């Protein structure tokens, strides 16, 4: 399953038992059921689980590139998302997603540009 590319949402996928994943999968990794619902995380806040600042990035990627794994709580279920960070963060910080039209130059890397989307959400600390 490919991620949604026609809308600036940050879309997690949910199976009938309530397990949430980002991105979606053909079957829920927890219980093997088809994922039938989506949840937009783009207007929610999450917590930084960990982060890194990458200073040796591949072609077409900003340098340095700070990345974080962020956990969102949705109806008692946790779902994690990885993404670029604007500014600095620490473990435990509360962040919000900010939509960006192009996260890296699709023409510069090895991946076929048409095979995936290149827009998405960076995380920014909520003051």
């Amino acid at each position, binding site marked *: 399953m490919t991620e949604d590319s026609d809308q600036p949402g940050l879309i997690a996928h949910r199976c009938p038992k309530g397990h949430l994943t980002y991105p979606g999968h053909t079957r829920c990794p927890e219980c093997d059921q088809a994922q039938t619902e989506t949840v937009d995380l783009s207007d929610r806040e999450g917590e930084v689980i960990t982060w890194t600042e990458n200073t040796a*990035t591949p072609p077409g990627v900003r340098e340095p590139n700070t990345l974080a794994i962020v956990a969102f709580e949705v109806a008692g279920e946790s779902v994690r998302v990885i993404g670029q960070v604007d500014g600095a963060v620490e473990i435990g910080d509360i962040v919000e997603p900010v939509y960006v039209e192009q996260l890296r130059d699709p023409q510069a890397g090895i991946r076929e540009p048409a095979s995936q989307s290149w827009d998405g959400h960076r995380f920014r600390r909520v003051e």
Partner: protein
Amino acid sequence: MDVAIVAASMTDFGEHDSWIRDLLAEAGQACLDAAPLDREAVEHLYVSNMASGEFEGQTGVMNALAHDLGLLGVYTQRVDQTSASGGAGIYAAWQSVASGASECTLLVGGEKMTHRSTGEATDVIASLTHPVEYKHGVTLPSFAGLTARRYMDRFDAPRESLAEVAVKNHANGTNNPHAQFQTEIDVSTVLESPIVADPLRLYDFCPITDGAAALLFCPADVAAEYTDDYVVVSGIAGATDTHVVHERAEPTWMTGVEESGDEALTMAGRSIDDVDVAELHDMFTILEVLQLEALGVADRGEGWQLAQDGVTALDGAFPVNPSGGLKSKGHPLGASGVAQVVELYEQLLGRAGERQVNADIALACNVGGFGNCVTTTVLEGAR
């Protein structure tokens, strides 16, 4: 059926002028030269390789190797499991002999990488990631930085303890003439090197490497007819973890290592306490620590202590990466899992020279992605 390894070889690891076909042929020919069986015995040929097409524009390397080695007529197949291609090749070679499909199987793993810039090579490897990772510029080193920070925060592991892994593996590499690096380093070398993926620095990472390695497999009873110098694959198992790394419940726990290790040891009828020496996949210093925990050598959150306390040193209670590991020996992707077992073959036969340890039972853990695919192999001396 017990499966034996009767010959092993590897090229020097480092920067080579030769390309993938030549590297594979050099290691494959050296293995056949060292083998007690005639080359006519070979029925299957497996080639472990992640990305010859992406690195060099050369596909079909298994057929090229069959032709170049004069093995026409054999069944051949390229095995790709990214960085774990070597371990997956061992699994394929073991299966071919254990099933009776092949009486003699040659496995050659190799990769040609150094003609690409660091950024380009990093991008080829990062192409294994999911689109939602790739579009953010996520690389394998960035997974290491994310995981190391989480590990240090959660378990109060000092930054120096990860550097100790690199110091140990560099020391071991000075005794391995095939290793890319032959230089000792100390903790300050690591901590003063440039940041790559904070908190990890240049010396926390393996280099980019050209090289190849090879092993020859046959039934143990056939091996015994020709030689006393062989080792037996007593256990082997593979496992997978999530493709999308952030979906793991706990980033610091390598479920694929735990599952493949448990299964391989169970197959061998052994526990981790029986193992005398291990080659682990130290693509990044943090990965050696996490594998020690997932394999049960250390309790959870305590793996960082082992290099610091000398437990995993060459003269320690549980030597890890006597070859120098990926860190010092180098990491030609498809060759690495094969080269781990080349080292353990030499160790079990007492041929490891200055880096020899006292070992009857050995374990190799080969990891692809950031623990996405794992093969664990248990080897035992024949005598």
